[in-house]
C-alpha cells in the first residue's frame, strides 16, 4: 500500500518497470533481496530507491511466473539467505521487455525533444 508521505525526491516506478529493473539486476548473477535493493540504489546513483513493500511482492510474483528461481544459501556471514537467479525464461522475458523499453524510451525522448518546425 502506498503511503502518502513518501519523499518527493524518490522516483515512482511504474508497474512492470520494477520487474524489468529486477531482471536486469539479476543479469549479473544471483542475488538476495537486500542485495538487489543495494545494487539498484548504487546502479542508479541513489536516484532509484526500491520500496521493499514493492520489491518482495515483485520477486515472489516473478518467481510464480518462473522468470526467476529462488533457493536458500548461506551467506558469508553464516546467514541463511534466499537467493534469486534469472531463469532462461526470465532471460527471454528480459530481452523482450528491454526492446519494448527501448522503443518506449525512444518515443518518450522524441516527445521531450521536439523536432524543429518544418519550414513553410
Amino acid at each position, binding site marked *: 500500500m502506498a503511503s502518502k508521505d513518501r519523499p518527493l525526491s524518490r522516483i515512482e516506478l511504474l508497474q512492470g518497470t520494477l520487474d524489468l529493473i529486477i531482471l536486469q539486476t539479476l543479469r549479473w548473477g544471483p542475488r538476495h533481496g537486500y*542485495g538487489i535493493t543495494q545494487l539498484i540504489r548504487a546502479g542508479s546513483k541513489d536516484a532509484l530507491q526500491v520500496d*521493499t513493500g514493492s520489491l*518482495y*511482492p*515483485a520477486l*515472489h*510474483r516473478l518467481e*510464480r511466473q518462473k522468470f526467476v528461481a529462488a533457493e536458500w544459501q548461506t551467506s558469508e*556471514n553464516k546467514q541463511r539467505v534466499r537467493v534469486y537467479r534469472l531463469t532462461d525464461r526470465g532471460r527471454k522475458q528480459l530481452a523482450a521487455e528491454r526492446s519494448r523499453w527501448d522503443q518506449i524510451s525512444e518515443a518518450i525522448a522524441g516527445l521531450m525533444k521536439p523536432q524543429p518546425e518544418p519550414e513553410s
Partner: protein
Amino acid sequence: MIWPWRRRRREAELDEEIQGHLAMAARDREAAGESPTEAGYAARREFGNATLVKEVTRQMWGGVWLDHLRQDLRQAVRSALRAPGFTAMVVATLALGLGATAAMFGVLDRLLLRAPIGVGDPEQVARLFVQEAREGRPGLQLRSSYLYQELRFFDGADSTVSVAFWGSSGTAPLKDDVGTLDAQVTMVTGGYFQVLRVPMAVGRPLLPTDDSASSPPAAVVSYALWRNRYGATPAVLGKVVYLKGRAYTVVGVAPRGFSGLSNTAVDLWVPVSIAADDVLGPMLHNPMVRLYAFYAAARLRPGTPRPRIVGALTLAVRRHLPPPLTTKYGPVEAEPTVVLGSIIPGREQVELGHVGESLRLSLLVGAVALIVCLIAIANVANLLLLRAVARKRETGIRLALGVSRWRLVRSVLVESLLLAFVGAAVAAWVASVGGEILRKLIVREDWSAPLVGARVFGFVALIAFVVGTVTGLVPAALGARADVVASLRSGVRLSTWRRSIVRSLLTVGQAALTLVLLAGFGLFARSVYRAQQVDFGVDMQHLLLASLGGGDAKASPVNPEDVLARVRRLPGVRAAAAARTAIPIFSYGVRYLRAEGVASLSNSTAGGGPFFSAIGPGYLEAAGLHLLRGRFFAAGEFVAPPMVALVSSEMARRLWPGAEAIGKCLFIQLSVGQPPPCTSIVGIVGSVRQGVSEPPLMQYYVPLRHEGEAYVEIVVRTSGDPERLVAPLTAELKRLLPDLPDGAVHSAPSIMASHFRAWRLGTTLFAIFGGLALLIAMVGLYSVVAFDGARRTPEFGIRIALGARGWSVARLLIGQGARYGLAGLVVGLALVFALGRLVAPQLFQTSAHDPLILGGVAALLLVAILAACIVPAWTAARADPREALQAE
C-alpha cells in the same frame, strides 16, 4: 497457487527472508558507524510495515481467496466458540425453524408432488374421470369412480390406450398356514400391473389371463406382507392363501412401497372376475347398489394427442351411459365426457379443482411450518444484528488497521454462513426425526422410501444459504457503513441503536406470527372440545364391538348368548348384548320398508336411512342408548310374535311429525315374496349419529332372534377405556371361535378417531409449531431486551446514583418489551382476522374469530413476553452505579 499444507512453511520462509533483509541492512548501517540499536531501528523504519509487506507478498503466491476464506473461517469458528451461548441460540433456532420446515417439505413433496412409488413411466399414466349430470345435483359432476357394471366401458375404445381398474381396498380376513389376518385387499382388473408398469419384486404380476372366472385364482402380495409374514423368501410363490373361503395361489410380490395410485397400504391384490362374487355377493349385479367403487387409470401411448384419446374414451363411455337427463334443476345439455387427471396427487387436485382433505391439511401445515421458519430467520437476523452493534468497536479497530470494507463484509458473511450451515446440519437431523413424526400424524402409512432424502437435504442447504446470506448481509452492511473515528471514540454507547427500525420490525413480526400460530392452536383445541361434546346417542366413549363370524356372510357357529355369558364375566365389562347392524359407525343395514301413513319413504330419507337394526336383550344398557318413551321388548318378543319395533326419535319426528309414533305400523320386507306383516312401534329411543358433523339418523330396531342365518355382533360397554379391553376380549372370543380374525374387535373411540383426526392433528401441529414459535420469539425478545439493558448499564447506573429506585429502572426495560409485545399483538390479531377465512372450514362449531380463544392466546403471548423481560430487567434494577460508571 500454494496449497494450504505448504503454506505454513512458505510463510516461515518469508519471515526468515525479511528478517535476513533487516539483519543485513542493520549490519551495513553499523559498518557505517551507527550504534547497533539505532541501526536496527533505522533498518526497520526504512523497510516499512513488515506485516503489510508480507501480506502483499503472500498475495503474489496466488490462491489468496482461499487463504482469506481460511482466515475468515478460522475467525468465524473462533468467535463462535468464544460466545457459546450466542452460537447455541442461533444454531438451535435455525435447527428448529429449518428442521420443521424441511420435515414439512419432505412430507408435502412425497404426498403431493411425486408420482406414486412403483409406477413405471408415470408421465404416461392418467386417471380417468367422467364428467356427467347426476340426478338431484345441479350442473355437471366429476365422477372418479365406476361401478362393477362399468368395468368393460373402455374395452376396445382406442388402440393407443390401455385401461385398468382397481377397487377401493377393504379389510377382509386372510387365512394361510400361519393363521388369520385382517388384510387390506384390492380387486384389480387383469391389466392393472401392466398398465402401471409395476416392476415386481418377485414372481410375476397378475395378467389379463388371470382375470377370468374360469382361471385358477391368483394373487399378488405386498412387499410388506411378504417380508413381515412370509420371511421375504422366494418360496412365497405358489403359497396358497384363503380369502372368503376361496384359495388363491400367490404368483408375485409387488415392489417395495407400492400401494397403487393411493397412499393407503394394500396387502393383497386379486383379480376382480374371481373375487367380486365373494366380496360383493348378490349386491354385485344390483345396479341400485353403489356401495363398492372402482377407479380407473390409463396408459397413453406417448405421442398420441390427448384430445384424440379423450375423444375415443368419451365415445366409449357414451355408448354405455344413459343419455343426458333432465334434473330437477333444469335440463343438462352436455353428454358424459371423459376427463384425464394426473396421477401426481397435488397436480391432480389442482387440475380438477377439488382440493382434498389431505392436501388442504398439508398446505395448512406447510404454511404453519413456513411461519415458524420465518420467525426463526427473523430471530437469527436479530441476533446477528445485535452482535454487529456490540462489535462496533471491534469493527472500527479492524477498519483502522486497514482491513478493506469488502473484506469486512465477507468475513461477516462467512460467519453467518458458517452458523447457518451448522444450523442446517442439525436441522437435517431434526428434519429426519420430525418428518417421521409428521408422517405418522398426517398419513399414518408406512412408506418404505425414506422421507427425508436428497431433495430435502438440498432444500435445507438452499434455505441455509439464503438465510446465511440474508441474515449476514444486514449486519455486514451495517459494519461496512461504520464510521471509523466515531465508533472508536464512542464504542457501543453512542451507536445507532435507537434508529434501528429493522430490529424493531423483526421483533414485532416474530410476536405477531407467534400469535397467529397460538391462535391456530386455540381454535383447533376448541374444535376438538366441541366435537367431543357432540351427543352421539350412544355411549361412544365406552363402546366395543366384536363381529362374530368374522364378516363372512356365514352362520356363526355358536349361540351368541353363550358368548355373552363369558364376555360379561370379563373385568371392566359393564354390559354386553348381541345385535346386528345396530351402531351405524361399525356396520349398517337397510331393508325395504314401508311405514303406516307415509306415502313414500324416499322423500324423507335424505341423510341416509331409515337403518335396520336387530338387537338382543340388554342392548339399551350395553349401548348406552336411552329409551325416551314407551317400552323395551318383552322377553317373549325375542322368540315369538307379536312383531314389535323401536324407532329413533329422529325417525318418529320426521315420519309422523306432530303425531304419536307409538302404535304405528312398520312393514319390513324380511323375505322375498310375502307381503310383510305389521310390526308395531312400542317405544322411542335416542337417535344415533354416524359422525360429529352428521345429522341424527333415522333408525328402527327389532328384536334379534338367533336363527343362525347371518352374522352377529356383540356390543360391549366398558367402565374404563375400551381400548384396553380389545386384547382380552379378542382372546376370550377366540377360545370359543378359533377362526376369529385378529382384527374382529373394534373400539368406538378408535373408529371415531378418524372423525376427530383433522382437529386433533391441527391441534397437535399448532401446539408443536406454536410452542416452538413462542420459544423462539421469547429467546429473540430476551436477547433484544438483555442487550439493550447491557448497553444502557451506564445510564441505569447514573439513574440509580441520582436516586432512582431499582423498579423504575426495570420498568424501562419491561416497558420496552411490552411495547414490542403490544405491537406484535395488534399486527398478529390483524393477521388472524385476515387468515381466519382460510382456516374456518377446518374448524368444528368454532368461529375463527372466537373472542375467548383470541383473548386467551393474546394474554398468553403477553405473559410470555413479560417473562422474557424479567431477567434483563432484574439485572438492570440491580445495576451498581460505581461499577457502571467505572466501566467507561
